[in-house]
């Protein structure tokens, strides 16, 4: 006989789970008791939100399903932001929550919340398990659903009596999960692929617009190959960075609201846009009618609902990005081309580079650039949300997939620090940096306790401007500098770090930046760098909300 808790833990081990992130509580006591016997590694966070973000960071860095665990009621509710973050960025995750016993369900019992109801719109699927007999296959289904198709979070809600109930159960070893309502399309339609290739060969100014789907489907090599075979330039979304090395001659960096000018100009002038694992988000397209106005559009995505959702598409291809790109590559039998188009893009690159002032003032772009030089494509870079995120996206040179971890869709402040904890456990041999703002960092600052407890060598680089910088930037540009509730009082982050037993350094001068980064790298444990940056530095260039993406402001310096 096995208890539900044992079936759960065994199920996790069968799925290859090694590390989970969680926080105990009343109704998950049976699960925690079982964990105590198992060789699963459990990381105790300081707030359940961090458990969800850590599982998410783990998943993005490793490509495997991340797992978090919380108790019922407040514990489950605290996971919500983390689950929504994972949902918006299609991150494979299984969230396990305790629940009050089945006989109390719906009774407003102590620490009861309807977490399956609450997470209905932010999970790919969720389960309230009512019988111990169902738990075994629910766990298998949850991992299967989370990790296949368009990936996403799945929640399992586990009433206490289900985890204490005892039944005979053996894990079905070689029995695949089948769900009649869930059969994702992996291979693209052959005729559509043929059509796409023909269109590509006919085009004069094609451009690849690569999104997070390239990373999720581990298709970077295919993306680069397709791009190189015909010399098609590539621009990436925030989520797609790392899909092609940033210093590749055909890479245009990021497009969209804070993209490079040359990427946005290329979109506007292209005659064929190949969207790969991207979803025409408003932060990318700006005003939709003027996005790629001269281009025919090929859209490759595993989720049919994304195709044609925002923009009309000429050739839709539903399928796994990797499989579709492989198929496309085998059909290309022509020489590199588009020389005039690439020459035009090269001219834009030279005329409109990303730039910032170097005048002896400590500026955030410099910090990111120096870190990028120091790591030279190695390491895992995680960010918070806001200016810190955009500066990192612009100035860090990502050379490999899964080395850039950020909350794109939901834009969750406080994501980065706990996600970097997860990223560390996914790739412990790589240095992990969280590029933070002083606002974001204070949203999950309590995780200093976690990194101190387990000596997790995450390096936090706070770009401290004592503002909620991105909101302040909008107030400066669009609200007549009325800084309504965006100024933060100074905080001595090094002292806080020290109080937790974490080392740190405050940096106020440009010449101290590199030594601080090196000190952080050399430190065996976690490390906090408090960079006191120019307070009113802006992220430029910028497309004002609702404008066309070629109407950028702040791109050139006088």
């Amino acid at each position, binding site marked *: 006989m096995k208890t539900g808790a044992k079936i759960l833990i065994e199920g996790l081990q069968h799925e290859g789970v090694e590390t989970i992130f969680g926080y105990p509580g009343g109704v998950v006591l049976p699960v925690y008791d079982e964990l105590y016997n198992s060789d699963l590694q459990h990381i105790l966070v300081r707030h359940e939100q961090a458990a969800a973000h850590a599982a998410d960071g783990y998943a993005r860095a490793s490509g495997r399903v991340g797992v978090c665990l919380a108790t019922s009621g407040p514990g489950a509710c605290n996971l919500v932001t983390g689950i929504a973050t994972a949902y918006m960025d299609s991150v494979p995750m299984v969230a396990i929550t305790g629940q009050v016993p089945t006989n109390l369900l719906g009774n407003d019992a102590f620490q009861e919340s309807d977490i399956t109801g609450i997470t209905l719109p932010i999970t790919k699927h969720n389960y309230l398990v009512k019988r111990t007999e169902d738990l075994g296959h629910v766990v298998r289904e949850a991992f299967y659903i989370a990790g296949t198709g368009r990936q996403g979070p799945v929640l399992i809600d586990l009433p206490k009596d289900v985890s204490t109930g005892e039944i005979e159960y053996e894990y079905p070893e070689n029995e695949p999960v089948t769900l009649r309502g869930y059969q994702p399309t992996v291979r693209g339609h052959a005729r559509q692929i043929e059509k796409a290739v023909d269109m590509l060969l006919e085009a004069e100014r094609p451009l690849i617009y690569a999104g997070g789907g390239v990373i999720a489907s581990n298709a970077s090599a295919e993306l680069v190959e397709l791009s190189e075979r015909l010399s098609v330039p590539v621009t990436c979304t925030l989520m797609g960075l790392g899909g092609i090395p940033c210093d590749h001659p055909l890479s245009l960096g990021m497009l969209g609201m804070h993209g490079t000018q040359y990427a946005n100009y290329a979109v506007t002038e292209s005659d064929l846009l190949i969207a790969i694992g991207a979803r025409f988000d408003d932060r990318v397209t700006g005003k939709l009618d003027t996005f790629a106005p001269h281009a025919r559009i090929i859209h490759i995505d595993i989720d*049919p609902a994304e195709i044609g959702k925002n923009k009309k598409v000429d050739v839709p291809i539903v399928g796994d990005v990797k499989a579709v790109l492989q198929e496309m590559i085998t059909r290309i039998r022509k020489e590199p081309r588009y020389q005039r188009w690439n020459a035009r893009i090269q001219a834009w690159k030279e005329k409109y580079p990303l730039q910032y002032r170097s005048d002896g003032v400590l500026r955030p772009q410099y910090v990111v650039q120096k870190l990028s030089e120091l790591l030279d494509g190695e390491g895992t870079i995680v960010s918070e949300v806001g200016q810190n995120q955009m500066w990192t996206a612009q100035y860090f040179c990502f050379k490999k997939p899964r080395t850039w971890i950020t909350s794109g869709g939901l834009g969750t402040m406080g994501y980065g620090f706990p996600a970097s904890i997860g990223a560390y456990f996914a790739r412990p041999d790589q240095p992990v940096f969280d590029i933070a703002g002083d606002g974001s960092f204070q949203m999950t600052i309590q995780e200093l306790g976690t990194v101190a407890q387990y000596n997790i060598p995450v390096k936090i680089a706070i770009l401290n401007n004592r503002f909620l910088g991105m909101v302040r930037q909008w107030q400066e540009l669009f609200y007549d500098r009325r800084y309504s509730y965006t100024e933060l009082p100074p905080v001595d982050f090094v002292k806080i770090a020290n109080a937790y037993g974490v080392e740190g350094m405050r940096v106020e001068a440009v010449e101290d930046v590199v030594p601080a980064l090196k000190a952080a790298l050399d430190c065996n444990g976690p490390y906090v760098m408090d960079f006191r940056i120019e307070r009113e530095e802006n992220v430029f260039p910028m497309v004002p909300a609702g404008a066309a993406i070629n109407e950028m402001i702040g791109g050139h310096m006088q």
Partner: protein
Amino acid sequence: MKSHTLSVLVENKAGVLSRVTGLFSRRGFNIESLAVGTCEEPGTSRITIVCFADDAKIEQVIKQLNKLIDVIKVSDITDIERVERELALIKVNAEPGSSRAEIMQIASIFRAQIIDVGTRSLVLMLTGDTEKIDAMEKLLRQYGVRELVRTGRIAVIRGAKTVKSSK
């Protein structure tokens, strides 16, 4: 914009209806009518949804419905030859005397059945398309409709073709 009739085959599991309706409200799609019940395949239910939307929106509705794990098959049968019916129960004031006779006449013209007779009221059961039920309700209004209950529309494709699981 037009009315679309969707026939949705779903797993007969707890919460499936709230997944479906939640999706409609969350994405701003309006449901005109909804009917649900178990069907010929064990463990499944069929939902008939009538939804007023333009073509792009209905395409999004169908794609989003298909993404639900518990949804087995979605068919838009709007442009397919089909039969569509709705059932209504109408409780109408019927004082003994001439009005009661008139109501019974209206019922027979519409082929409605009288399924309950009270001293001062009648309950009529009517099946038909939406227009027919609307027309009868309009006629009965002068006597005083005390309560009107409608099932929502259900539909099947004419002939041997079916809406089966093969998603």
